[in-house]
């Protein structure tokens, strides 16, 4: 216990000094940090959704994976930022900041592997895609054209979040950009493939959701007993292709 008290004493002192340096937002070495409570920090690597910014987030995730920082318990990479969660009893914020800056310097030397491309089968329409007709109507086009547009684009996985294995993918073709549903659904079935704004997603488990459901995939997006546990990872490329209801039922799972 005395060890912990001493450590916290030190931490208390350091944070008194640091508070002036950090505040809520601070910029250093081109990095923007934002404090989120007493055990997490958000690093911002840009201010918009773009492949270049997301690539830097991915690079930072890789450098953090390859050079684990003692006291960092988890991290969550997102579109343009990376959340670092630390144990304040094991690392103080000043030391964390120095190590983050070290990693930031190493980051550009990291070669990120060539992303994999994953082909995803989807049954479009009927009870599998209850919003397909609405989306076609909204864009004053046909169901066939919506499917052609959705399957005709290759999407980048920008982040995994919301539920385990849930990919956030962009960019939808311009003529498919659609506002969110006015009323979110409370139960979106597992495997649902949906769109809203310029994004497309897949729901790995039944969950609430506010996107328009176009269809459903028989693929399993999350398996806690596999490594990695998710079908898709940040940085991957995805292409959808249409299948029939019969194929869906017989798809190996």
């Amino acid at each position, binding site marked *: 216990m005395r060890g912990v008290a001493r450590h916290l004493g030190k931490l208390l002192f350091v944070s008194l000094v640091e508070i002036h340096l950090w505040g809520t937002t601070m910029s250093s070495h081109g990095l923007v940090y934002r404090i989120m409570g007493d055990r997490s920090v958000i690093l911002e690597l840009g201010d918009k959704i773009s492949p270049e910014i997301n690539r830097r987030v991915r690079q930072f995730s890789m450098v953090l994976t390859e050079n684990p920082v003692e006291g960092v318990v*988890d991290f*969550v990479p997102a579109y343009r930022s990376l959340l670092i969660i630390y144990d304040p009893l094991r690392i103080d914020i000043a030391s964390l900041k120095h190590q983050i800056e070290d990693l930031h310097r190493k980051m550009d030397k990291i070669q990120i592997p060539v992303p994999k491309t994953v082909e995803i089968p989807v049954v479009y329409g009927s009870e599998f895609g209850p919003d397909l007709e609405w989306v076609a109507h909204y864009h004053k086009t046909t169901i066939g054209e919506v499917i052609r547009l959705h399957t005709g684009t290759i999407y980048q996985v920008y982040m995994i979040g919301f539920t385990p294995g849930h990919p956030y993918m962009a960019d939808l073709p311009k003529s498919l950009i659609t506002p969110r549903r006015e009323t979110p659904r409370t139960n979106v079935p597992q495997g649902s493939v949906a769109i809203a704004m310029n994004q497309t997603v897949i729901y790995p488990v039944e969950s609430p959701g506010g996107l328009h459901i176009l269809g459903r995939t028989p693929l399993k997006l999350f398996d*806690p007993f596999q490594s990695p546990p998710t079908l898709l990872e940040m940085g991957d490329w995805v292409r959808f292709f249409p299948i029939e209801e019969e194929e869906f039922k017989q798809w190996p799972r």
Partner: protein
Amino acid sequence: MATVETFKVVAPGLLTNVQDRGRFGYGRYGVAPSGALDSFSLRVANLLVGNPENEACLEITLMGPKLRALTDVAIAVTGADLQASCNDRPLDMWTSWILGKGNTVSFRGLKGGCRSYLAIGGGISLPEVMGSKSTNLSSKFGGLDGGPLRKGNILSSNSPYLHLKTGGSTFPQAWIPPHAKERYVRVILGPQDDQFTGKGKKAFLGTPYQVSPDSDRTGIRLTGPMIERRPEVGESIISEGVVSGTIQVPGDGQPIIILVETVTGGYRKIATVVTADLPLLGQVKPGDTVNFKQVSLDDAYKALRESEGKINRFKEGYSPPP
């Protein structure tokens, strides 16, 4: 170590699930930490029966289960007061009790708080999934086949006999967190507090908020005065990571305190609850009120040092004067 059957579930209760301190290191796959919402109560329950403090317990929500002991076993109940009893005789909370084979543990009803923790001497023998025994209820893995306790489940423990000598050990009364229907929660403002108006921030820090019935392990939804955002900023932000205790404000201005079942969010965050007060969030239930109090990082670490100190001193066998 011998694995021994310790309990049979006679009735599961409203939502009783297996939780330890949580699952960490899988945030990039969208895997939330899960884990006991009131980790202070979980850790103390474990220590009382001689378990490592990270061992899995039963997290019992609002209405308790009925469990029959299949062997002589040590248990401790902490957290919410659900009036635990053994063969209809009340069991003091925050105390290690020795049950005889055939005894039945039940709960007579909620007196305070929201979640009780029942630790079994020798723990709950279950495989770890991604480094934890915690139940991820929405993705259905961990714990007992990914779900809550069901009638007929059998719980097993490692060498429960080795824990029988803990009987009678108690946690100091002075260190037991009190239950109240009105809660004061310390927060650190940010990271997007500058995107709310002065009026919005004043409402957030100056008025009590009511806990809504659609609160769960993912989040506590609150209702109260609208937290107004600046007119020039949109309703949502580009999604990013969140931690438990993060307070998001969606377009309707009604705050949501994120708990342990999600890792990302797409709304502005006005503040984050300090680590020392997270256990308290696990004891908040629909109808309670929550008041937010702004503190500095230094205050937050001081509060954390205080609560960790209680657990560490208890581990060393120290008791405060009554």
